């Protein structure tokens, strides 16, 4: 156990280091002045330029610069956005929770709807219900997410007018952003009608979450179905049945557990596509998440924001992936690495 934990700790710190190195190299790769990309302040005159250069040790060797860059990062001084002048740590801490909230709800729906449907179609393999579920999931899997979002907007909010289409909550609710997670902020906010704010936030959440969840649920259904069918063909299921266990007992005690174990590493890949889709959909629903923020930054050529945004998002995603891998390694007793799991 300790050996595994230490191995994963090394892997995590190594990846984190490579990500920091990547973001450090961006300072020189971006077509702007290294000083502006690092600090976000455009030096007005030569004197301020010199002051910044030695304040961030930009003139001595790369290694010292990188070491200093790392200490700055962990000290929380992430520099200032080129355009808005706000400190980056503040802006990212405001934008990241919005995307996390969106992806978490989408992931919840993916798991709650995807896995049961996958099991259902897996158990009734090669029957008509299995065929319909499978064809629906193949279709839903291949719909481009931005087109789906546009279709949802056109039908649900413009045609029927049931759902709002932009932002996290109606701006008339003045919710001071304490943690960045809207649901928690509503509870913390004092002079606001909580029930109305909560229902409004939920209504705003439905369309973006549905447009992201559709695609990931479809692929989750296919993965689960394939995994269930593989497990059902295994010999120990025949042995269990000959032991006289009822089909319900066999499913819950043996099939479900063995089918879900190989799915975990694939969940990590699911999270990556989910967050990518979330970043695309944010621009359509003007959801103030990290995706929207990054795309605004690229439009405004805000290089310091790009550098820090990239580091924040990739660290988040890599952390989740490695956590899922570790969790899978811990609870998967069979040690037999599910290397080539087909989708």
């Amino acid at each position, binding site marked *: 156990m300790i050996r595994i934990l230490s191995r994963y700790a090394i892997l995590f710190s190594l990846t984190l280091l490579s990500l920091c190195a990547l973001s450090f190299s961006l300072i020189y790769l971006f077509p702007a002045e290294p000083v502006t990309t690092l600090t976000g302040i455009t030096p007005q005159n030569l004197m301020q330029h010199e002051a910044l250069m030695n304040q961030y040790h930009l003139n001595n060797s790369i290694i010292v610069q990188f070491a200093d860059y790392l200490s700055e990062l962990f000290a929380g001084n992430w520099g200032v956005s080129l355009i808005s002048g706000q400190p980056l740590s503040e802006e990212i801490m405001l934008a990241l929770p919005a995307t996390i909230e969106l992806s978490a709800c989408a992931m919840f729906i993916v798991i709650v709807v995807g896995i049961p449907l996958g099991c259902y179609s897996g158990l009734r393999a090669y029957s008509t219900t299995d065929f319909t579920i499978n064809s629906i999931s193949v279709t839903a899997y291949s719909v481009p997410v931005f087109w789906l979002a546009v279709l949802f907007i056109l039908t649900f909010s413009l045609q029927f007018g049931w759902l709002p289409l932009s932002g996290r909550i109606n701006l008339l609710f003045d919710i001071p952003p304490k943690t960045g997670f809207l649901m928690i902020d509503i509870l913390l906010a004092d002079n606001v009608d909580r029930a109305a704010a909560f229902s409004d936030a939920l209504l705003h959440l439905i369309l973006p979450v549905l447009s992201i969840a559709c695609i990931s649920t479809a692929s989750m259904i296919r993965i689960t179905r394939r995994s269930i069918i593989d497990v059902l063909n295994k010999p*120990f299921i*025949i*042995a269990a*049945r*000959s032991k*006289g266990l009822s089909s319900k007992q066999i499913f819950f005690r*043996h099939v479900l*557990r063995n089918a879900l174990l190989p799915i975990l590493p694939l969940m990590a890949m699911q999270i990556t596509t989910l967050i990518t889709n979330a970043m695309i959909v944010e621009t359509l629903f003007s959801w103030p998440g990290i995706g929207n923020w990054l795309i605004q930054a690229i439009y405004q050529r805000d290089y310091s924001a790009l550098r820090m945004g990239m580091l924040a998002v990739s660290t988040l995603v890599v952390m989740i992936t490695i956590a899922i891998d570790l969790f899978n390694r811990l609870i998967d*007793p069979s*040690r037999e690495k599910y290397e080539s799991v087909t989708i």
Partner: protein
Amino acid sequence: MPLLDIKNLTLEINTGTQVIKALDKINLTVNSGEIRALVGESGSGKSLIVQAISGATPPNWSITADRMSWNGNNLLSMSEQKRRQILRKDIGVVFQHAIASLDPSVTLGEQLEESLPDQLIEGSWFWQRAQSRRKVVINTVHKVGIKDHEQYLRAYPHQIPTDIGQKLMLAMALISQPKMLIADDPTRGMETTTKVQVLKLLSRLNQTRSLGILFVSHDLLAIASMSHSMTVLYCGQTVESGKMKHIRKRPLHPYTKALMDSAPSFSKDLPPKSQLPTLAGTIPTLQHLPIGCRLGPRCPRAQRACVNVPAVRKIHDHSYSCHFPLHRDKV
């Protein structure tokens, strides 16, 4: 009253393109306390019979039988619930690959406790029942010959050697004190030392607990010594069955004779350096089964009459199905 009585069992497998008659009119009876060997070359449908009995059949199989009864009541017409009850209580099944037949994600102790029916444990409170459950598991494991049970009960299937796995499968089958045990070639691929251990264990159980055993195997040497009666299977057809002594002394079906000759220890008068007599040709694949007597093309005594399926004839509990049996020239 035989424990298990199967008459004319036919199994058709619908493989999408064509329907294959894998088992053709199987007759099999096992009395209580009797060890019956079911012998046949690999691919003759032995494990299909075991699966047919246990009812674990995939959707594209269709099973028809004149009679398939357990202690008198017909298995096929029984309700799913009732049949499962019998399987759990009275029949224990041991499979060939022990490790593959165990759930890789559950500890062995749990799997053993799972196959223990509730009737056998006492204690009203749940912790008492858990203790008694553990006690029964531990002494069954001891009975099967595993001393250090602590280490194995906590382990996972991929962490234990195959012979221990085999013994645990046996324990799992015996834990519900069944009346009959179906062993599907448990000793296949084992070294002789462990093989002898398992066989001795089985015969000891048969004597002490008069446990009926249906021993499915293709290894004649091991079975001849311990089983009371034998049925020979070829390509899904029962060719001969009867008392072990009669068959060894006077096999009536050419295939049984060929089987007997191929085992060197039986025919003592074999001149040194002579070729072992075997049947020509190979076992036909399921898609190309010959009509009538399936041994037809390979049988040295085959004649025109063999084209239609030979009826089953009995000479006081020694039955065979062949038009031109050995030692009895007239039909």
